[in-house]
């Protein structure tokens, strides 16, 4: 089940997942199944198609971003800016579409323009993070902490402290991207699924995926094995930026607005999902399907807490934290020697 490990990576940590595979694989899935069973037991509506659709669709934003984050973390990096980047891109996309409305009118071209703007902005934002990290050699934590503050301020400034709202007619036209779907599966779920499958394939079966793991596991050795470390690392940030743009494309039609509170703490949720899924925070090993399970665990917790009156709403955060830690303990058990 484990991703193919680079032959040139001799650290014990890299071998650990292969040796004691069972618990790390079963852990997150077990946690997900337990949560789903708990939800179904507590409330019969939990398994209704409408509720499942709600949960999956709202997971899509974080999920799409978390898939990109898996690559960044696997390659030994980190990106704290994705939440505010999403808010900034959402604001930008709304402004571009509103500005083009008088000349283009409501229609498919203007939606495509907005989507193009979002992807382009994501690409540039990712490129900027990546270049600062690889070319100038600044710590990823510091670079992205800085850009996190910058994007959050920029969106507040663009919105003049308030909320940027998509023109009402435009919003009605664009709305089916979030609420509509194909064969009864809504678009955000379809896109999330595709991104996850592609991510899994890239991580597991391509040279790029192996390079990421090699760099994260030991940068020096990767370099001597003629892996273009800087370029691969840059690519992970650009890819993450693009995926943030894609997530925004799914997010904007939901409420048609962006404000300073958009995407708040998404970066931490995405990182938490990646780690719950079994990717090593220090890099060297990544698992995209695990990330998907992690994202689902996180949104299920919120959903179940809302569907039941089990605990005081004041304690929601505590329950969430508890389950995150438990999910990680469950899978680390077998690896204590590593």
């Amino acid at each position, binding site marked *: 089940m484990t991703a193919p490990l680079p032959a040139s990576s001799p650290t014990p940590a890299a071998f650990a997942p292969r040796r004691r595979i069972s618990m790390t694989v079963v852990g997150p899935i077990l946690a997900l199944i337990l949560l789903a069973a708990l939800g179904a037991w507590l*409330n019969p*509506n*939990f398994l*209704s198609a*409408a*509720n499942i659709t*709600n949960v999956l669709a*709202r997971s899509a934003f974080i999920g799409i971003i978390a898939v990109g984050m898996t690559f960044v973390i696997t390659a030994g990096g980190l990106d704290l800016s994705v939440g505010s980047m999403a808010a900034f891109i959402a604001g930008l996309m709304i402004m571009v579409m509103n500005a083009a409305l008088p000349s283009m009118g409501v229609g498919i071209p203007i939606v495509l323009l907005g989507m193009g703007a979002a992807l382009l902005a994501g690409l540039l934002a990712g490129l900027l993070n990546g270049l600062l990290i690889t070319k100038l050699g600044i710590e990823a934590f510091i670079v992205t902490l800085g850009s996190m503050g910058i994007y959050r301020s920029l969106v*507040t400034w663009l*919105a*003049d*402290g*308030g*909320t940027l*709202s998509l023109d009402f007619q435009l919003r009605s036209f664009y709305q089916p991207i979030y*609420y509509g779907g194909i064969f009864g599966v809504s678009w955000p779920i379809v896109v999330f699924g595709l991104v996850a499958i592609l991510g899994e394939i890239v991580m597991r079966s391509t040279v790029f995926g192996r390079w990421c793991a090699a760099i994260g596991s030991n940068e020096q050795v990767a370099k001597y094995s003629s892996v273009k470390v800087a370029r691969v690392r840059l690519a992970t940030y650009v890819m993450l930026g693009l995926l943030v743009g894609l997530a925004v494309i799914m997010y904007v039609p*939901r*409420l048609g*607005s962006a*404000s*300073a*509170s*958009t995407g*708040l703490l998404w970066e931490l949720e995405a990182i938490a999902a990646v780690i719950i899924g079994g990717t090593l925070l220090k890099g060297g090993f990544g698992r995209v399907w695990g990330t998907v399970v992690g994202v689902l665990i996180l949104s299920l917790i*919120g*959903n179940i807490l*809302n*569907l039941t*009156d089990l605990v005081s*709403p*004041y304690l*929601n955060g505590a329950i969430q934290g508890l389950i995150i830690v438990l999910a990680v303990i469950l899978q680390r058990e077998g690896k204590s020697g590593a």
Partner: protein
Amino acid sequence: MKRILAGLCLTTAMSLSAPAFAETKTVGVSIPAATHGWAGGMNYFAQEAVKRLEATYPDLDFVLATASDPAKQVNDIEDMVATRNISALVVLPFESEPLTGPVKAVADAGVWVTVVDRGLSVEGIEDLYVAGDNPGFGRVAGEFMAKSLPEGGKIVVLRGIPTTIDNERVEGFQAALEGSGVEILAMEHGNWNRDKAFEVTQDFLSKYPQIDAVWASDDDMSVGALAAIEAAGRKDVKFVLGGAGMKEMIARTRDGDAMIPANVTYPPAMIATAIEVTALGLVSSAPVSGRFVIGSVLVTPENAAQYYYPDSPF
């Protein structure tokens, strides 16, 4: 001290149109950053008030600082005292507890202190207190619910960020509903956030087959709740009652939208009231100390037009 200052100012104004340099007084304004719609509106009105007053009173200088957390706000206030030598401080505390000590130190140094909206945890520090009426906000909303729903009506409640403000509102709301026969099915925190309110409302709709109305308690949350109801195609929800008077929602009430039949005010412009009155105290001899509570009013289609501020971001 304050009297003396006010007196000095009056003398200056009357006797000599002095080279404003020496006699210029500085008013510090410290408010939370625009992290949600209401705060955005509050920031807007603070800037407008400062702009207007600087033009009106050449002798007054203003320094406006926005803080993203309580610690930053404490730093802002300390900087204002240390480097700008402020004569008056208008502060909307991020949180009551952490700001009480620092603001008390400012007041002890003889600076006029105006506290807005969130009271400090020790009484008697501020010279002027300007606030919205949180229990009243809940009560007005509760009375509207009781009046608009039949006995046995079922509602769900979206609460704000867990704070004293939210508690006072919810208590007022519950008290107003008592004996009306309207049943609160569930309450959950939507954190005055559109996305969170959207998700919580979706889950409420999954959980309860019959909901007659939603008290969103804030217009940002109304936006999320309305989107969730619309997406679920639920016809049983008759209306959503928000609050704080976001201009888009006020416009919908004004235009007779049945889903938004009313609103309850909690004007972000109260910061402007506080700044204006503080400035008045500095430049005139009019007594301005005390408490100024701005009541929460029910906005209906009939009176909505007068609560619509097209230029405000909120």
